[in-house]
């Protein structure tokens, strides 16, 4: 339920005057789509805490900060690139929301696979333009949401990824979004479209990093279509600057017998929100894993929505959170089982660890079940470290801080261990170890 909320004049102004955001040789149909989105934004604005779906997350700081659009001039330091890029992947690199060909590499890309920056889509062939048109705005079910309209009206770049039928991509495709020094107080609007055609198999990573302590806004929307019998793994690693804002969404349609695995790792940003939505057709299989680790004053909001629309689909959702200091974590997970979706098998688990008395977790699982022959289970816990285990570790010679760190690390590492692609696992592990420097953990011991 969206609540009408006056749009912010700064951002409404951006929509009215923005020309730099437009894609080169943009087609009229896209301009019309942007105008419709801008008109909706001008009515509803950004979501407010009065909106039930946003009650735990107040984005007024984004409105006050008045981020402006970034230019395509940014250079990025090698150290930041090294930190961002994963080994053994194809890379498409975006700096401050703009494609950077010199850091990207698609050499040796499997035949039948299209990986194209959206800024080049209208200068590419008709086939790519048709693909783009058919995918854009085809999965999102919630047009009134302010950040989506904002993104549709303004996106300047992003990735189009299409895997042809019966094609297996030999390496993961990484879409790396990096914010440079010049990106301070700027906003990046990217749109990604990922299309796994029938019986294809691919892995796509989205990573978000930025210059340390730089303040910027990332507003990103990813639309995903997984056709019958296709198998898509999609991971997003949000490791933005600790002063940045990040609003992201992954909207997915799974067709019959499709397999989709989504992993969502949140470490960065002072305020972040990730929407992970999946619409399931018959006998599709959807896994949603998440990990969010918050310190200081970080606010991390994870919103998942799984719609079982047809029979025999399976969904497994497992999110873990650790909140320290004054950090606040939010998990709102909703499973909807439609009347026709008999034999649905759905589980949702959310486990949280609070390390400080001033940290907070708001967790809200919601099940809406309209079918009668289904298996649905959900579990939610918010707890502290196990005193008995701390005593046990200390009695063996680990000091108190180390014992606490070991247990916290172990709690979170359960999600990291699930990552089969090693370069990503180590990247996520690096983020985790940064949070627990006292643990003295070494990768070789894991």
């Amino acid at each position: 339920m969206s609540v009408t909320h006056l749009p912010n004049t700064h951002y409404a102004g951006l929509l009215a005057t923005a020309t730099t955001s437009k894609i080169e040789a943009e087609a009229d149909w896209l301009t019309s789509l942007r105008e419709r989105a801008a008109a909706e934004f001008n009515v509803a604005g950004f979501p407010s805490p009065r909106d039930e779906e946003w009650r735990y997350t107040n984005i007024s700081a984004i409105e006050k900060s008045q981020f402006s659009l970034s230019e395509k001039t940014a250079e990025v330091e090698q150290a930041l690139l090294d930190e961002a890029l994963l080994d053994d992947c194809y890379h498409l690199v975006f700096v401050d929301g703009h494609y950077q060909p010199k850091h990207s590499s698609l050499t040796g890309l499997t035949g039948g696979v299209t990986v194209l920056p959206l800024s080049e889509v209208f200068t590419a062939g008709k086939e790519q333009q048709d693909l783009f048109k058919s995918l854009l705005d085809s999965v999102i079910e919630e047009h009134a949401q302010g950040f989506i309209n904002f993104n549709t009206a303004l996106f300047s770049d992003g990735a189009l990824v299409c895997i042809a039928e019966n094609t297996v991509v030999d390496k993961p495709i990484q879409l790396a979004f990096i914010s440079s020094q010049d990106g301070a107080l700027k906003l990046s609007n990217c749109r990604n479209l990922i299309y796994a055609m029938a019986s294809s198999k691919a892995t796509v990573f989205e990573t978000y990093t930025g210059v340390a302590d730089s303040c910027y806004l990332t507003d990103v929307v990813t639309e995903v279509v997984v056709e019958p019998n296709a198998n898509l793994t999609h991971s997003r690693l949000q490791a933005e600057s600790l002063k940045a804002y990040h609003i992201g969404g992954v909207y997915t349609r799974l067709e019959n017998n499709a397999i989709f695995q989504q992993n969502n790792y949140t470490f960065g940003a002072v305020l972040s929100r990730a929407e992970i939505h999946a619409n399931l057709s018959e006998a599709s299989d959807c896994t949603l894993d998440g990990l969010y680790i918050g310190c200081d004053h970080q606010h991390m909001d994870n919103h998942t929505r799984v719609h079982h629309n047809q029979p025999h689909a399976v969904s497994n959702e497992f999110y873990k959170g650790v909140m320290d200091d004054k950090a606040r974590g939010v998990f709102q997970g909703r499973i909807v089982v439609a009347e026709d979706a008999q034999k649905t098998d759905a589980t949702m688990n959310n486990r949280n660890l609070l390390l400080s008395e001033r940290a907070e977790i708001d967790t809200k699982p919601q099940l809406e079940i309209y079918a009668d022959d289904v298996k649905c289970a959900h579990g939610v816990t918010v707890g502290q470290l196990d005193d008995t285990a701390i005593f046990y570790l200390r009695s063996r010679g680990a000091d108190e801080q180390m014992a606490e760190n070991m247990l916290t690390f172990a709690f979170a590492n359960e999600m990291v261990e699930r990552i089969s692609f090693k370069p990503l696992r180590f990247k996520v592990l690096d983020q985790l170890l940064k949070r627990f420097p006292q643990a003295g953990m070494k990768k070789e011991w894991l």
Partner: protein
Amino acid sequence: MLKIENLHVRVEGKDILKGINLEINAGEVHAIMGPNGSGKSTLSYILAGREGYEITQGSISFHGKDLLEMSVEERAWAGVFLAFQYPVEVPGVSNIYMLKAALNGIRKHKGEPELDAMDFIASVKSKMKDLDMDEKFLYRAVNEGFSGGEKKRNEILQMSVLEPTLCVLDETDSGLDIDALKIVSDGINRLRDPARAFVLVTHYQRLLDYIKPDFVHVLANGKIVKSGGAELALELEDQGYSWLEDKKAS
């Protein structure tokens, strides 16, 4: 090595230990026997430093230092080791990692350098072989999903890796079948050393068939009501504890 004097302990307003006196020297093996609820496990936890116990009177010195002033980890660094009656499961922390973290914690405290990883693993593996433990246990989470016997063996493995000077074994024989009991007892006997003392806390005499104690103490109603040599355990086996409890009551 260890001197307990007039130790009184209260838990949740209830007196559990009511004046324990016990002196243990290096190289000795002491068995502490007694019926359920006599305070045996409380004594073990007090030595290891568990919270939740109120010490109302008395003192414990260890190598001349005030043990009660030391934190849990300081006791471990100083050479105290408790083999738990119910070893704790630590999901997500591998056995090998915990062993290394524990041993390096102790070595660091002694001013010794960290162990070389390969040497360390080789040494742990040879100790596992002695305890008839599969190497795969190294990489499993500490005690998670272990059977009762596997957990007890794992305690002895930790003990043999950490090489403490005071080994307190709380009901180590419980949950062990006869084969496992032999393996665990052999493991303990291998560690017997003139510089090391053992406190075996046990309800039954059967562990003492394999590990011969120098002294046996009977704990009943929070006090040591009788002390003697290894033959006292056999006497208890024949007659049970009631004659001692009755004696105290009268």
